[in-house]
């Protein structure tokens, strides 16, 4: 069944604040196998000019599961999770995420378009600190396989 086009442009409430810990950064860096000391060693991060340990660029994927749940699970959207694959991911960064940040993501559904038999659901989240400083924008394209409206 096609996705509900009425959701296009819909904005959702800000996700709960997410506290970035040094431990979660190290754990994430270990998981992608990236040994960079700036992700682990506060002295190295400070020597490089940062206030604290910084996070790898794709660390923000951890927030994705927090802010996208409400959108994706809304029964009126009509998304069947078994048919979903991740098509594309994009980040724009104002600065690196660092340990001690408290991040709040405000998500919306930017677009719902048909492409062949599939539909593309584009979500966009602006990620700010609790103080309102914008840190990044995250855009995800989710492919809903085989749900495009069929003509005739």
């Amino acid at each position, binding site marked *: 069944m096609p996705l509900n086009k009425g959701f296009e442009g819909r904005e959702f409430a800000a996700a709960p604040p997410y506290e970035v810990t040094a431990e979660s950064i190290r754990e994430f860096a270990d998981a992608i196998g990236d040994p960079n000391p700036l992700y682990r060693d506060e002295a190295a991060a400070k020597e*490089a000019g940062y206030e604290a340990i910084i996070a790898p660029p794709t660390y923000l994927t951890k927030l994705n599961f927090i802010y996208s749940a409400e959108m994706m699970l809304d029964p009126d959207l009509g998304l069947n999770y078994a048919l979903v694959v991740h098509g594309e991911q*994009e980040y*724009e960064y104002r600065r690196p995420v660092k340990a001690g940040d408290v991040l709040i993501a405000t998500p919306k559904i930017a677009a719902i378009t048909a492409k062949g038999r599939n539909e593309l659901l584009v979500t966009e989240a602006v990620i700010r600190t609790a103080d309102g400083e914008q840190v990044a924008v995250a855009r995800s394209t989710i492919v809903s396989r085989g749900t495009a409206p069929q003509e005739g």
Partner: protein
Amino acid sequence: MGARIAAKDLTQGQELPSWSYKVVREDLVRYANASGDGNPIHQNEEFAKSVGLPDVIAHGMHTMGRMGEYVTDWAGDPGVVERFKTRFSAMVVVPAEGGNTVTVAGTVAEKLEGDRVRLDLVATTQDGAAVAKGEAIVALA
């Protein structure tokens, strides 16, 4: 803070040294735990096959994470990445025996104002399939 690569030393079309990594099942379990993506298609062979996949597949974001390492290691500072985008075009299949080896390659696609460059990136599995194509804008010295 700052890149170790100077924009003036690069030319459009220049290829960066490629880099390979191995991915095995244990990596995907670790990634699932750290990222919060517990989808069983990335861990459970029986489940993956039951939904029509050839075997366990890597998380797209695991591949993008490793492509990020390629960029930040080359540039010399993770803080210089301004934009990073990846399109997932095929699956990284990770069999129980031997896993898979992925090669990441980059090209200087465009020189931008302010000592910034746009890189084109491609990740290819050991059987030659391009699994992810990306681009990154980085601020260089």
